[in-house]
């Protein structure tokens, strides 16, 4: 006997199906809106330079490689690879600095009781409220007097000294959530603070650390003001400064190469995110009591 579905059940099924269909179509439409600029950049990078500002078509009628092959020649005598190398150096140092210094600082705030802890913590959070532009000139003068202008030091020194208060805060909050029993057990086994930090707290804080690392990498990669102010020699410029060199207010801007380069500049950021986001999810899925 074949099962007979009542009309009521059928409509119920259909409604569910159309509902899910509508939901997916809606989500896809939303995605199209969000991705539109990316698709535009992608399409534009294959257009002749003149068409980029002239034609409104999303995709090129006749794709050309000229924009990408033009990148190989560099700009104003500087190779594109040098911009990428400098940005990578900056981003990697920034990530190393933030991860090491912020986690150590956060350990102190989260796990050690000491006099003035709350006051210092409040002060640290207070530094978040200082606008960047207030610090700009005093910092510039400081690094100039130290002789560090035109090096990466002004850009990364602060990162090694846990001045990124937001990430310290993030890690403190995370470490406070780790069970107290774990460090007590470590203490019983004879661990000092450094050992507890290194062997217990740091591995368990992986999600917070990965989050900080991803954001630090993206921030450093996209940073414009810092490199603009501190780097003078064009061969030391980062990608964000290199992109500006394609602009020409008084003549003809090289939009083709600019767009092609911004597309290429997205690759490391996406790659970094892809490489680490699985740890992020992995970290959140597992509890602190592993192994």
């Amino acid at each position: 006997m074949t099962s007979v579905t009542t009309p009521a059940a059928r409509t119920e099924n259909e409604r569910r199906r159309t509902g899910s269909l509508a939901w997916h179509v809606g989500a896809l439409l939303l995605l199209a809106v969000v991705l539109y600029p990316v698709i535009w950049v992608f399409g534009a990078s294959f257009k002749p330079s003149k068409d980029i500002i002239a034609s409104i078509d999303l995709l090129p009628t006749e794709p050309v490689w000229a924009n990408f092959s033009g990148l190989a020649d560099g700009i104003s005598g500087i190779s594109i690879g040098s911009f990428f190398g400098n940005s990578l150096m900056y981003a990697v140092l920034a990530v190393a600095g933030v991860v090491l210094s912020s986690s150590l600082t956060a350990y102190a705030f989260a796990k050690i009781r000491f006099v003035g802890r709350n006051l210092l913590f409040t002060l640290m959070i207070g530094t978040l409220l200082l606008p960047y532009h207030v610090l700009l000139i005093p910092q510039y003068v400081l690094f100039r007097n130290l002789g560090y202008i035109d090096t990466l030091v002004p850009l990364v020194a602060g990162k090694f000294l846990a001045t990124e208060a937001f990430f310290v805060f993030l890690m403190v909050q995370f470490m406070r959530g780790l069970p107290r029993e774990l460090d007590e057990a470590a203490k019983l086994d004879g661990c000092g603070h450094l050992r507890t930090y290194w062997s217990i707290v740091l591995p368990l804080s992986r999600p917070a650390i990965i989050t900080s690392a991803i954001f630090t990498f993206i921030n450093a990669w996209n940073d414009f003001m810092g490199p603009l102010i501190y780097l003078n020699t064009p061969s030391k410029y980062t990608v964000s400064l290199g992109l500006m060199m394609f602009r020409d207010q008084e003549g003809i801007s090289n939009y083709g190469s600019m767009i092609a380069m911004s597309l290429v500049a997205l690759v490391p950021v996406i790659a970094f995110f892809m490489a680490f986001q699985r740890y992020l999810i992995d970290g959140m899925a597992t509890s602190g009591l592993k192994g």
Partner: protein
Amino acid sequence: MRTSRNVERRTILKAAGATAATLGLAATTGCGGDSGTSADGTVTIRYAWWGGEPRTIAIKKTIALFEKKYPKIKIKPEFTDYEAFWEKFQTQASGGNPPDVFQNAVTFLRKYDKRGVLMDLKTQADAGNLNLENFRNGVLANGQVDDKQVGIPVGANTMALVIDLKAFKKAGVEAKFGWTWDEYFTALQTIQDKLKIAGDTGYFSIMYLYDLYLRQNGKAFYTDSDLGFTEDDLTQWWEDGYKRVKSGLVADPKKIEQVKPKSGLSAGLAASEFTWDNFSIRYQGEGESDYGLAPIPTTNGKDTGQYLGSLMLSAFSGTKHPKEVAQFIDFMVHDPEAGKIMGYDRGILSTTEQYDAFKPTDPNNQGVAAYEDQVAKAGVLGKITPHPSGADVIEAAFLRIGGEVAQGKTKPADAAKALFSEAKAAFAG
């Protein structure tokens, strides 16, 4: 588990070590380059400019030429685009570390003179390191502030009207020397009627054009320390402008915004646009039509109010090598070979040595040269309008507020009031 943790630690330690080493390396280079003089007496000076790739390539060639002639002087180039340049310069100037020599413009002279950043190059001229002779059409005065020579012009340019030659021809109208504003707007009306495109892209938001209009009427945009016109003057100017937007004589500002960064003229939205003559190269590159330079409309049938503006080279007052800096500027503005390499990239070459050495071969540069020649011969060139400290901020405010008027967001009277209050703040800052 244990071993893997050890490996991890080792890699991390290695990474930390590498980091420390890099920081150390960076530190050594940082200490080396500060004084600018090395053991064998070679002097290094920093030279900064803004501009596109063609300019950078040309300047690098002239630097190579200079270094060959002065083997004891090394030039360290620093370059970026216009906005980034001034953002960076502001921090550098406040931090006491601007480049030794840099490209400068009239709008910034008083601002940085007031802060003591600019060197008075007269002292170097008196010492024989810099020649202040042979400048054409009195452009040397563009670099003077209160009897000080704080900038040496590298080129000269003037405001011009860029027109779509094909559109003008098709509509049967002609731009004539000495034509009046009425004649100009009548011509635009004919173009609008016959070709169904606007006449102009938005003339009333351009500070330098309003300056010319005021000069034609015995005023100017600035006095030595203030605005040279009244709120009523400006209200009138913007009211007329807005009327022409509504009638379609001036292109719809929304459409102009949509085609950016392309100009409304090269996008075919309008048939004319006011701009500096040396910027005119962009239209040929962006648009499909033919473009040419036309005379500025006048009030009395003769005076255009035009003057020559300049990009120039300035020196930092605190440089450790004033003599070498002066020699470098001298070379850049007088050497015929350097002039040949630079061409009209920063305006018509300012000294007779360079002007005579370079003969333009491309139609755009020939057109610019012919235009400035024509203006000079007509005898309409006047003395440059003074640019008080804050002129750069006011120029941007004029463009922005004028744009709001064009879109009908702000009433002309309110807009004029807003500009006056922003100007007051800019003069004080």
